[in-house]
């Protein structure tokens, strides 16, 4: 479950931020980098990251299961997370979630048959003023996602 030299170089840059005897601090970033490369975090990938950092596999596993942006099971090519918390819900967040379910023909926590889209319901992303808000593959925030904007986004991803 080796990672590419590019991913390892990125992990090395993260490791360099912390004291030499505190490589464990880089585990969150290392798992993020591994997930971007592999699409999700298998037990083997987590074990590899742990060994690369010289920490116990369980220490990396704990982190991978505690933070909710790590995917411990395969997801579609595009994971779309919709915020439905109160501030977003007051400005169309719940509607955006319902529209996406209808449009993709799946419920939350499901993946389309072609493996393209996974839909998730998320908690506060810290962007309530831009509601409705979606996150694509954890890293790309999309603001003001009205039905029209969702249509455009899905067409672009497709």
């Amino acid at each position, binding site marked *: 479950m080796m990672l590419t030299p590019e991913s390892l170089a990125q992990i090395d840059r993260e490791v360099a931020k912390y004291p030499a005897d505190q490589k464990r601090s880089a585990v*969150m970033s290392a798992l993020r980098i591994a997930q971007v490369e592999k699409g999700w975090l298998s037990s083997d990938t987590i074990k590899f990251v742990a060994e690369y950092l010289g920490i116990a596999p369980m220490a990396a596993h704990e982190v991978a299961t505690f933070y909710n942006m790590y995917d411990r099971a395969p997801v579609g090519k595009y994971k779309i997370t919709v915020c439905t918390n109160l*501030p977003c819900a*007051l*400005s169309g967040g719940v509607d955006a979630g319902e529209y996406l379910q209808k449009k993709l023909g799946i419920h939350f926590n499901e993946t389309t048959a072609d493996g393209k889209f996974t839909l998730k319901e998320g908690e506060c992303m810290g962007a309530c003023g831009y509601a409705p808000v979606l996150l694509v593959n*954890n890293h790309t*925030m999309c603001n003001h996602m009205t039905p029209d904007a969702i249509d455009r986004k899905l067409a672009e991803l497709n």
Partner: protein
Amino acid sequence: MTVYVKGVVFDGVDFDDPNSWNIDAYIQRGGYAALKKIIAEGITQDAIIAELKTSSLRGRGGAGFPTGLKWSFMPRSFPGQKYLVCNTDEGEPGTFKDLDIIVNNPHALIEGMIIGGYAMGITVGYNYIHGEVFEAYERFEAALEEARRAGFLGDNILGSEFCFQLHAHHGYGAYICGEETALLESLEGKKGQPRFKPPFPASYGLYGKPTTINNTETFASVPYIVREGGQKFLELGKPNNGGTKLFSISGHVNRPGNYEIPLGTPFADLLEMAGGMRGGKKIKAVIPGGSSAPVLPGHIMMETTMDYDAIAKAGSMLGSGAVIVMDETVCMVKALRRLSYFYYEESCGQCTPCREGTGWLYRVVDRIERGLGRPEDLDLLESVGKNIAGRTICALGDAAVMPVQGMLKHFRDEFLHHIEHKKCLVPGF
């Protein structure tokens, strides 16, 4: 869209200019002048901390603790490594101000942290950034690189003896890491589970070393105070509530966004700046300080000013300055159900009262919302709340209880109506 009005953090930022965040634009609007002044004039650590105390700057993350006092707790003469940490893990529903700071004016934060390092004799700092805002994390990394190249960060800053290294740490989705000791655990590469206090971070923080943690907006206010003086900052606000503050307004207003205004501004004025109520509807309720703050009826808010003391007097808290506005169509049971689910989902699971109690709160509110509520459920909610509040390591338990208590205090009738008639008193969300 951010709507800047008037304040020290966004002073001079041009939100329409895509380059306004960078170091050249920041320097052009007076940026890094405070740091240069400190180095050139050899301003002492004590003088900086005294200036902060004069300014009455209070922690902008939610607790409102006096910043000058916090900085004075750092044992400056401690011989080993000490750390400075910024909390940009902004995940309190309703709050989105720190995101705008690191995207639109990251150097104000960087300069504030460098000054903090100088004032407390600290040489290494970390900025912990909320997981969901990866693009903002990348922006902050780019700003750090600019500051290093310009000689503001690194060894022998501006030719002096002072050295300060600053790095960004990216979270990956856990509300609890906004709690300062959970944040430290997370920075150490562990699960974000809060630590017992005491010992406080000032004596036992990151890697067990003395650590000072402040919020993004707090640090970003520091350059202005050093440049213009604490007295001038204080006078922008009101006594004991110095300066200007960012308010994140969301919900049923015409122009949601961040408004930086003097502390002590009437809520009615702030609502008007935000374009008033959407669709001309009547204001019903406001959560004035992020989802953990007790809700207040609209008519009380319309007579309140936006500062720590006035909001506390009205029965809630200013918190992070996240103002969630709800109009007359909102069903308060449904609103509370959404908030209670959040705390249930985000409890770290360490303390039994919170781990189990947040589930109880959610399930009871949920059954009331679904028309399955029982007459004794309101007493049950209060009893569960009493068994959580004050019985946990960190404040997440209390934060889960406060919205419930606020709702039952001011909107009890709606909950009773739900239980009795199995449906909403009001039609909308």
